[in-house]
């Protein structure tokens, strides 16, 4: 029943991204055209508070719910991987107007055709997995 916690947090996240129109194709287009502050405000304020939270976790050694120390692993360094992979994702983000989280939320909003977008994204992930050894990381 511990899993219900994740369901609950997911519901809050789904409502938030719907109500703030972050799942809107229009909003993503507007963001990439620099015609609105909205998305920058969302990401900027999330990161600003997120930095505070992450620093607080480290400085005050905040424990997890199970009493263990919270360990946030560093990401392995590379330039090619993040720049190339990131750009490919960015292209998909601009086309579909959705990153992985919003894909699920859009289905909940009744845009059932997004199930096909998710299937295509799963296929993309699979093809990456198969080609992984031959890609520049």
């Amino acid at each position, binding site marked *: 029943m511990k*899993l219900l916690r994740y369901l609950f947090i*997911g519901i809050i996240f789904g409502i938030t991204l719907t109500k703030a129109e972050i799942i809107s194709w*229009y909003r993503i287009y507007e963001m990439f055209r620099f015609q609105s502050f909205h998305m920058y*405000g969302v990401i900027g304020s999330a990161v600003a508070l997120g930095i505070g939270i992450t620093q607080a976790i480290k400085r005050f050694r905040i424990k997890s719910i199970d009493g263990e120390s919270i360990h946030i692993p560093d990401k392995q360094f590379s330039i090619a991987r993040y720049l190339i992979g990131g750009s490919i994702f960015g292209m998909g*983000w*601009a*086309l579909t107007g959705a990153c992985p*989280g919003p894909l699920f939320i859009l289905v909940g909003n009744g845009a059932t055709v997004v199930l096909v977008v998710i299937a295509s994204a799963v296929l993309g992930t699979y093809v990456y997995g198969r080609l992984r050894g031959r890609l520049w990381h």
Partner: protein
Amino acid sequence: MNNLIEWISQPWPWYVAGPLIALVMFSMLWLGKSFGLSSNLRTMCSILGAGKNCEFFDFNWKDQTWNLVFAVGLLLGGTIAHLWLTPENAVALNPATLAELQQYGVEPPEDSLVPASLFSWSSLLSLKGFIMLIVGGFLVGFGTRYAGGCTSGHAISGLSHLQIPSVIAVIGFFAGGLLVTYFVLPYVLSL
């Protein structure tokens, strides 16, 4: 109570959404997990049996059940907001954006968060719909796994943790996004 629901039903400003997203990230850390949605796509590959012929998908996906449940929560949250918390007003886009989109033949948002003409089953059969939904989805799946994360894993979690790789990834997100928005969408949308 009705007033409360009416109040929640208004579009939420960025300064409400941003901090809530940070709190969601904190909740996941506090529960001993990490905040990142694209890993679910990898998990789905594993569930579908991709681990049999590819080592990258050969892991015990049941350990990731919590993240799949989180994704189901996203879907339910979307449904709740859609059914009960929907206001009358449309997405308040910049008039310049609206005019531009109209030029490309994209209808203005009325009661929908996405252009209904694009996000429909029949649109899949058109070249425009195929490029935007199928090719777009493929690039999202391929790119997020290549970069090791998406908006939640890199832009929110990674930047919050002051990770240089995430800064590079986010620069990539925008490089790809701007390229498509400025040089590809004008053609694709006019198809």
